[in-house]
């Protein structure tokens, strides 16, 4: 596959699966205000997915549409980071997953704003404003709930312990990113990890949470290796278009 297509799928699949997981909170978040905020954020992510899939489909040139890419690929063909497919569990897990994603997504989008490839540059210019708000919101909540009551702190620490190993998958790169970096499509990728580490260290310290020091890292999503939850997410997300492929709004 063209490295550019692979990269766009890695980005778009990650925003799609997180958007789908976030959408599941609609009607279930702890308070009405959070419910609306979470649904909003999920919609932002699904909107960004559409942009990534358009670039992928156009570059690929096989006549596939963004909907084809979302609904008619199988688990091994999805290239999202494993972090975003981790289950909702409770609000602490959903929020921690969102924050770790945001802490990577913002520096990533900032780097992509300098891309030499025009449609990626344009996508990033548009998305980065949304992402700045996403992290402002998730960071605030991490600090308030981490440095909150004994119960909220314990829940946030539990979520951080469970999800931290998966953060590595957001930043996993291979020859795809290296090729695109050499072409000027992906400038400044090395800064993304530094920014992620600085952001998370500062925030967890304010939140009185401890980043696990085990060094344990789970990767594989970028090459289509997924955890046990992924099949269920796709089954739910794809069941209607697969049952009724010609259905229209």
């Amino acid at each position, binding site marked *: 596959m063209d490295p550019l297509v692979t990269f766009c799928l890695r980005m778009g699949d990650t925003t799609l699966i997180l958007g789908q997981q976030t959408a599941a909170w609609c009607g279930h978040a702890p*308070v009405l*205000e959070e419910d609306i905020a979470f649904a*909003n954020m999920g919609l932002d992510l699904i909107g960004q997915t559409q942009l990534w899939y358009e670039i992928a489909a156009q570059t690929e040139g096989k006549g596939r549409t963004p909907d084809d890419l979302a609904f008619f690929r199988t688990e091994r063909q999805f290239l999202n980071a494993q972090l975003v497919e981790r289950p909702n569990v409770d609000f602490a897990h959903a929020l921690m997953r969102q924050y770790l994603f945001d802490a990577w997504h913002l520096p990533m989008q900032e780097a992509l704003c300098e891309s030499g490839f025009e449609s990626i540059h344009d996508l990033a210019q548009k998305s980065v404003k949304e992402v700045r708000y996403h992290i402002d919101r998730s960071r605030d909540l991490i600090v308030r709930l981490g440095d909150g009551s004994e119960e909220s702190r314990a829940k946030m620490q539990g979520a951080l312990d469970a999800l931290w190993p998966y953060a590595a998958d957001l930043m996993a790169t291979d020859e795809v990113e290296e090729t695109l970096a050499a072409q000027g499509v992906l400038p400044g990728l090395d800064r993304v990890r530094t920014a992620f580490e600085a952001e998370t260290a500062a925030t967890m310290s304010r939140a009185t949470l401890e980043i696990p020091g085990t060094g344990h890292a789970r990767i594989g999503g970028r090459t289509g290796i997924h955890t046990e939850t992924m099949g269920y997410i796709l089954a739910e997300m794809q069941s209607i278009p697969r049952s009724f492929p010609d259905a229209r709004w």
Partner: protein
Amino acid sequence: MSKEWPLWEIFIRGQHGLSHRHVGSLHAPDAEMALKNARDVYTRRNEGMSIWVVESNKITAFDPDTAEQNFAAPKSKVYRHPSFFEIPDDVGAM
């Protein structure tokens, strides 16, 4: 003490030159989060460019039972409206 988050009144300015208008209320643990919640609840469709939040219990209002003594009198004093002047034609639109 109540475990509910406090209530906040939300004021939004639609565009430059207009004043902030009360649009509704919501719950939030503090002012910062109230702003963020207001952004998500009340400006999803490009409604505003500035938001104020005020904790509801910081607002002082008349007791509705005293509406009569406070608001009834002017109803009979139409002459307080400047609607009895004849505007000369060359003044144009006021």
